């Protein structure tokens, strides 16, 4: 079998006195969709951010696409192969929808304007934003912003996509459109790691669910097993609180 896309071995991360990741092992295979769930403060975002080096772990090993990323010299080239979507969208406020999707293609991948625009329009079309290409991003709804952010990441044609609570900042009526877009991606075979509180989405779309608690992975299994017969008491307690103990 191929090497996993992501393979994390025993990573530790602390912020001052606060040990946030306490020896995490975790891997993701090609084409897999893995959802990370867990209480607030359990270290989900930190784990995700370590994968594209927005945080640097204190110890341990992270292999992505077969190389140890803590050793890579060209961090920018590495990051360009890993897409990331944020809870707050973080669209570039000074650019319109189309330009948001073109900038990194031109500056990082050194594509020509025409090429970048073509790719941008392709992915904007894919996320259903084709009618808004010239919009200033400030005038978009939350759902439209997040779909634009997804398109922006896809324009780099990443081999791995990371999502950090992509729907948590959205009004309830807009959650659906973003989840639909993400589901499409999953169906296309995109490898994805998704931090989410949307248990319905996790149950439906993911191949595996990883439950984190206090900086450790407590459960790592198929949605069915995690939701129906979680092994650990902590998982049970968590699922009970999210009213998802019984699917």
């Amino acid at each position, binding site marked *: 079998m191929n090497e996993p896309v992501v393979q994390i071995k025993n990573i530790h991360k602390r912020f001052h006195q606060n040990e946030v990741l306490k020896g995490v092992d975790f891997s993701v295979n090609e084409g897999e969709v893995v959802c990370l769930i867990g209480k607030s403060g359990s270290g989900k975002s930190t784990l995700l951010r370590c994968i594209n080096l927005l945080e640097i772990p204190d110890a341990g090993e992270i292999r992505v696409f077969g190389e140890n990323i803590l050793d890579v010299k060209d961090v920018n080239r590495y990051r360009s192969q890993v897409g990331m979507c944020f809870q707050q969208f973080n669209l570039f406020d000074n650019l319109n929808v189309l330009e948001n999707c073109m900038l*990194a293609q031109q500056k990082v991948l050194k594509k020509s304007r025409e090429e970048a625009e073509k790719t941008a329009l392709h992915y904007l079309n894919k996320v259903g934003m084709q009618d808004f290409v010239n919009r200033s991003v400030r005038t978009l709804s939350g759902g439209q912003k997040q779909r634009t952010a997804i398109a*922006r990441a896809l324009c780099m044609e990443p081999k791995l996509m990371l999502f950090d609570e992509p729907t948590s900042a959205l009004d309830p009526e807009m959650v659906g459109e973003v989840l639909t877009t993400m589901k499409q991606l999953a169906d296309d075979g995109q490898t994805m790691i998704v931090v989410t509180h949307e248990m319905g989405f996790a149950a439906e779309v993911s191949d595996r669910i990883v439950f984190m608690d206090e900086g450790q992975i407590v459960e790592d299994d198929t949605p069915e097993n995690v939701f129906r017969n979680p092994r650990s008491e902590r998982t049970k307690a968590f699922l009970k609180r999210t009213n998802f103990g019984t699917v």
Partner: protein
Amino acid sequence: MGFFGYLNKIITKYGVSILLGIRTTLYISLVGTLVGLLIGMIVGGFRAVKLDYTAPSPLKTGKKIIDKILTVYIDIFRGTPMMVQAMFLYYAFLDLIGWSQLTAAVVVISINTGAYMAEIIRSGIQAIDAGQTEAARSLGMSNAQTMWYVILPQAIRNAFPAIGNELIVNIKDSSVLMILSINELMFQTKSIAGSTYRFIETYFLAAMIYFILTKIAAMIMNHIELRINHQLTSIPQSDTSVNIYTTKTKEED
């Protein structure tokens, strides 16, 4: 002859040299503000960049040293009078490069404005959400690219009122550059007053002109600011028109 009589006489007799003064004043303050803004962008942007953990240590040391030098530059130019800077630099470089007083004036006001702009830009940068940087970096953009294409444009936009204010300050404060005997408005005023002995009327006229110039500058700045804000928050008349044109023409070609 009354106050307005003299005023009238001064205008008719010295109108040309007053216009010349206005021209030089506007020239110095406009160029000074623009070059100052450019200096401010480079210095403020440079100081705000945080190097990656992967950066080699000579680079880190180099950056630290340059940061220090830039801090000293900003401190000195904000902490001493521009009039002193003008005299000192003019004479300090006179033998070396043999520059004209006008060139020296433009250079001094630019460097002086640059020091203020650097601080304006830096606080503009600090006000920008860290998420903007994270998004750019997550796409693989370098520190410098992130700064230049994402952060600086936003910092300048947010700091626009302060930047515009520098132009107004420069229109007024360029008057101290009369010390270099360039024919800017204050220098012209002084010589007119000297030859007419109508001090009150002449300086009243100068005050009026400075006031009108700064008012016009403020109006232009406000107008630009409104336009920027409008662009950011307005929805294009037709969302689809332009993109249909871009997609279609590309494919038909």
